[in-house]
C-alpha cells in the first residue's frame, strides 16, 4: 500500500442535531420568515442540509424593533461587568459545543474540518473571551471617560468564515453595550442559527442579538433601516461601496472590511522552507477564500526558481477532498457562483499569457472544487495580478530591489494585508513602514488574534476590528445632556462626514 494514501478519517456527524427548517431568531425566539425560504446545501456534495427562511422588510423591521427595545429596556442599562458575564458564558458554551459547531461549519461552508476545528471555532471562543474582558473597562478603550454605546448595530457578514465573522461583529458590539441585528451570508446561515441556540442557552436577554437570514436584498433592507445606528459590513468592495453610498448622510456609523490582493514579499535571505509554508498558508488556507489572502507572491528574482520548485513540491502534498476528513487540507469552494468566478479569472490569466500550474488532485465528481493553482510569469498589468480572485490561485511576480518590492506590493487599489519574509529584522521593519496595508505579517501569514486590530486601507475598507480599536468602532465619547450627535471616535474608524466633523467641533 501507499502510506500517503491515508485511510479515510472522517469526523463523525453524530452529535449534530439539525432541524429541517430554520426561521429567524428575533426577540429571543425562532420565528418563521415571511419571505420565500431557500435551501442551504453542502458545497462538497451539493446535497441539501436544511431550509432557511428569508426575511422581508417586515421581518427586518421586527428584528430592528426588538433590538431597539432590548437596547432601551435592558442592555444599555446593564453594568459592564454584567454584560461581560453574558459574554463569558457565550464563550464557554462555544467551547463546549466546539465539535458540533466545527462539523456544522464544515458541512455548510465546505472548508476542511481541521480548519474549523483548529482555527475558526477556537477563534470564535477567543473573540468572546477577549471582549468579555473589555465590557467593564470601556473607560480605557481610547474614546475618553464614560464612553457611550451607539445603539442598534446592523451587521452583515460574508460566507468565508461564517461563525468567526459573526464573533468579530457581535462580541465587540455587545461588550460596548450595543444590541445587534445580524444577517449571515445566504450560503452559510447554518452556524449563526446554531449560535442563536447558544444565546438561548446563555439566557441572553431577548432582543439583544437578533439573527435574520436571506439574500442581498435582506441585507440591503437591514442596513437601510432608519432604526439602525451602526452598520458593519464585511464582504465585497462593490457591495461595500453601495452600502457606503446608501448610509452617507444618515448619521449611521459605518465600518467596512472589504476585498484585498495581499502581497507576500519573499526576500532572498528568507527562511526558505518556512516561507514556502507561509505562501501555502497565505493562499490555500480556506481555499484562498480569504479577504487578506496572500494572493500575490512577490519574490526576489534571484531565488524565484528555487522557491517555485519548492512550492510545487509542497503543493503536491496538499490533500483535496472530503472536508469532513481530518486529513483534508483543501476543501470545497463555497458555491457554484464563486467557482465560476475563480474559473473565469484563471482562464483569463492563461489567455493573458501567464503560465498556469496546478497540483495533481483527484477532483470529486459532485460539489464545487478547484485544485490549488499558481501562475508564474505574471506581470503587474495582468487581471490576475489586480483583481481579487477569492480562490486557491496564486499570482507570482518578481522584484530586484526592496524599493521595487514595495512599489509592486502597493500597486493595487486594495490595502488589506501583506507579508514580509526575511531573516533581517531591520529590513522587515523598514519595508513594513512603507507598505500601505492594514495588517502586515513578518515571517508568517494569516495569523489572527482578538487583541490585534484588523482592517484595510483604500478599497479594502475602513474601520478596525479586533483589539481596543475594534471596540472603539462601537463606542462614542460621553454624550453631554441635550446633545444627540454621534462623534467620530477615531479618524480611522469613522469616515469624516459633514455631520461627524461638526459633531467633533461641538465636542470640543
Amino acid at each position, binding site marked *: 500500500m501507499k*502510506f500517503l494514501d491515508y485511510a479515510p478519517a472522517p469526523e463523525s456527524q453524530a452529535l449534530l442535531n439539525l432541524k429541517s427548517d430554520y426561521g429567524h431568531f428575533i426577540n429571543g425566539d425562532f420565528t418563521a420568515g415571511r419571505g420565500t425560504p431557500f435551501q442551504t446545501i453542502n458545497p462538497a456534495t451539493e446535497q441539501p442540509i436544511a431550509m432557511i427562511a428569508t426575511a422581508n422588510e417586515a421581518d427586518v423591521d421586527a428584528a430592528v424593533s426588538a433590538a431597539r427595545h432590548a437596547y432601551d429596556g435592558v442592555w444599555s442599562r446593564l453594568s459592564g461587568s454584567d454584560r461581560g458575564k453574558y459574554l463569558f458564558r457565550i464563550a464557554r458554551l462555544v467551547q463546549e459545543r466546539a465539535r458540533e459547531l466545527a462539523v456544522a461549519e464544515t458541512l455548510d461552508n465546505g472548508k476542511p474540518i481541521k480548519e474549523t476545528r483548529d482555527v475558526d471555532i477556537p477563534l470564535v471562543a477567543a473573540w468572546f473571551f477577549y471582549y468579555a474582558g473589555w465590557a467593564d473597562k470601556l473607560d480605557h478603550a481610547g474614546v475618553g471617560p464614560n464612553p457611550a454605546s451607539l445603539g442598534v448595530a446592523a451587521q452583515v457578514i460574508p460566507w468565508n468564515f461564517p461563525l468567526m465573522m459573526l464573533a468579530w461583529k457581535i462580541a465587540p458590539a455587545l461588550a460596548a453595550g450595543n444590541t445587534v441585528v445580524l444577517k449571515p451570508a445566504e450560503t452559510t446561515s447554518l452556524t449563526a442559527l446554531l449560535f442563536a441556540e447558544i444565546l438561548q442557552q446563555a439566557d441572553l436577554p431577548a432582543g439583544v442579538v437578533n439573527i435574520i437570514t436571506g439574500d442581498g436584498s435582506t441585507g440591503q433592507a437591514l442596513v437601510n433601516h432608519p432604526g439602525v445606528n451602526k452598520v458593519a459590513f464585511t464582504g465585497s468592495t462593490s457591495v461595500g461601496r453601495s452600502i457606503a453610498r446608501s448610509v452617507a448622510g444618515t448619521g449611521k456609523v459605518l465600518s467596512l472590511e472589504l476585498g484585498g490582493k495581499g502581497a507576500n514579499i519573499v526576500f532572498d535571505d528568507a527562511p526558505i522552507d518556512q516561507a514556502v509554508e507561509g505562501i501555502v498558508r497565505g493562499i490555500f488556507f480556506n481555499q484562498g477564500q480569504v479577504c487578506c489572502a496572500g494572493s500575490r507572491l512577490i519574490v526576489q528574482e534571484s531565488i524565484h526558481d528555487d522557491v517555485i520548485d519548492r512550492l510545487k513540491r509542497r503543493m503536491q502534498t496538499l490533500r483535496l477532498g472530503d472536508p469532513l476528513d481530518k486529513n483534508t487540507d483543501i476543501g470545497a469552494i463555497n458555491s457554484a457562483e464563486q467557482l465560476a468566478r475563480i474559473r473565469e479569472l484563471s482562464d483569463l490569466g492563461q489567455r493573458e499569457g501567464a503560465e498556469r500550474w496546478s497540483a495533481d488532485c483527484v477532483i470529486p465528481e459532485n460539489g464545487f472544487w478547484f485544485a490549488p493553482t499558481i501562475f508564474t510569469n505574471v506581470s503587474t498589468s495582468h487581471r490576475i495580478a489586480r483583481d481579487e480572485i477569492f480562490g486557491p490561485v496564486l499570482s507570482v511576480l518578481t522584484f530586484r530591489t526592496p524599493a521595487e518590492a514595495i512599489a509592486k506590493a502597493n500597486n493595487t487599489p486594495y490595502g488589506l494585508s501583506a507579508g514580509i519574509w526575511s531573516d533581517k529584522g531591520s529590513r522587515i521593519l523598514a519595508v513594513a513602514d512603507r507598505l500601505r496595508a492594514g495588517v502586515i505579517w513578518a515571517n*508568517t501569514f494569516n495569523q489572527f488574534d482578538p487583541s490585534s486590530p484588523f482592517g484595510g486601507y483604500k478599497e479594502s475598507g475602513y474601520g478596525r476590528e479586533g483589539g481596543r480599536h475594534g471596540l472603539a468602532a462601537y463606542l462614542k465619547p460621553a454624550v453631554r445632556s441635550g446633545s444627540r450627535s454621534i462623534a467620530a471616535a477615531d479618524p480611522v474608524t469613522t469616515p469624516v462626514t459633514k455631520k461627524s466633523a461638526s459633531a467633533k467641533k461641538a465636542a470640543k
Partner: protein
Amino acid sequence: MTSSPLATYQPDQRALALIGGEATDANLRRYLHGIPGIDAVGLEARAADLGTRSIKTSSKRWAIDTIIGLIDLTTLEGADTPGKVRSLVAKALVPDPGDPGCPRVAAVCVYGDMVGAAVTALGSLHAAGATEGVNVAAVATAFPSGRAALAIKLADVRDAVTAGADEIDMVIDRGAFLAGRFGQVYDEIVAVKEACRRADGSLAHLKVILETGELNTYDNVRRASWLAILAGGDFIKTSTGKVAPAATLPVTLSMLEVVRDWHRLTGVRIGVKPAGGIRTSKDAIKYLVTVAETVGEEWLTPHLFRFGASSLLNDVLLQRQKMTTGHYSGPDYVTID
C-alpha cells in the same frame, strides 16, 4: 587547523567542490552560513501541523508494523552486561512471543564492548548489513560526550567494527562545532568513516549524532546536518539520548529538510534517525507522517530511517495487539527486555 593524522584521510571530492575549496574553517563557515536560515516559529508550526494527521485503520496497521521494523532497540547503560544484551537481542528477534507474524526490529544498539555479546546472541540471525535478520549498531567515539583524543575515538570505532558492528553511531565534537572549528568536525567525521572500513574493504554504516539538544538552535542543527552529510555520514541522528531535549519533531523535520535538499542537489539519499524521547506509537506515527510528507515515503525503510528507542517498542506492541484483538491489554502482556 588540520592536525596530522586527519590529513591522511581523503574527503569526498564532490563535497569539496560544493564547499568551493579545502574543508577549512573559513570555507566551511562561508558555505554553512550561506544556507537559508530557519524561522523557529514557522518550523514548529509546520511540525505541529504534520502532527495532526489522523492515521486510522489500514494506515495505522501498516504504520505500526513499519515502526517496529525501523527501531534500533537500544541499551546504553553503565550497568549493561552480556546477559542484558542477550535479553535485548531476544526481544529484537521476537518482539511479541504471542504473535509469530510480528516483524523484527532493524538493529540492536549497544556500547562498543557489548558488540561481541550481541553478535554471539544473534548467531545466524545477524543480518550483517543485509535485510534478513537484525543488525548490530555500536555507539563509539567517546560516546556520549565525544570528549577524547582523536586516536582514542578512532580506536573505539575500529574495535567495534572488528567485533562485528554493522553500524557505527558516532558523536560529533559539539565543542569544536560551537567554537566555529567546522574543519575539525568535518575532518573527524571523515576519519571516523575511514575507521569504519573492514578488512575486506567494505564500510560499516556511519550514523552521525549531532546532539541537537546541545546545539540549541535550529540554524545550528541545519548547519551541523549539512556538515555531517558533506563529510560522508550515511545517516544523521539527533541525539545520544543522554541530553535533554533529545529528539523532537521540529528538529527531525529540519534534518529531513536537509536530507531532501541534499537529494535534490546530488541524487543521494541520506538516512535520518531521531533518538531519545520517542516513547509512544502515537508519537512515532507523527514521525512517519513527517518523513513521508517531507522527503517521501520511500524513506520509510531501515536503510533511510530509524528510531533510536528502548521503551517505544512495547507501546507499539500494545497498539498492535489492540488492533489484532480489538481490546487493550496491559504492560504484563508484553515482555521486558
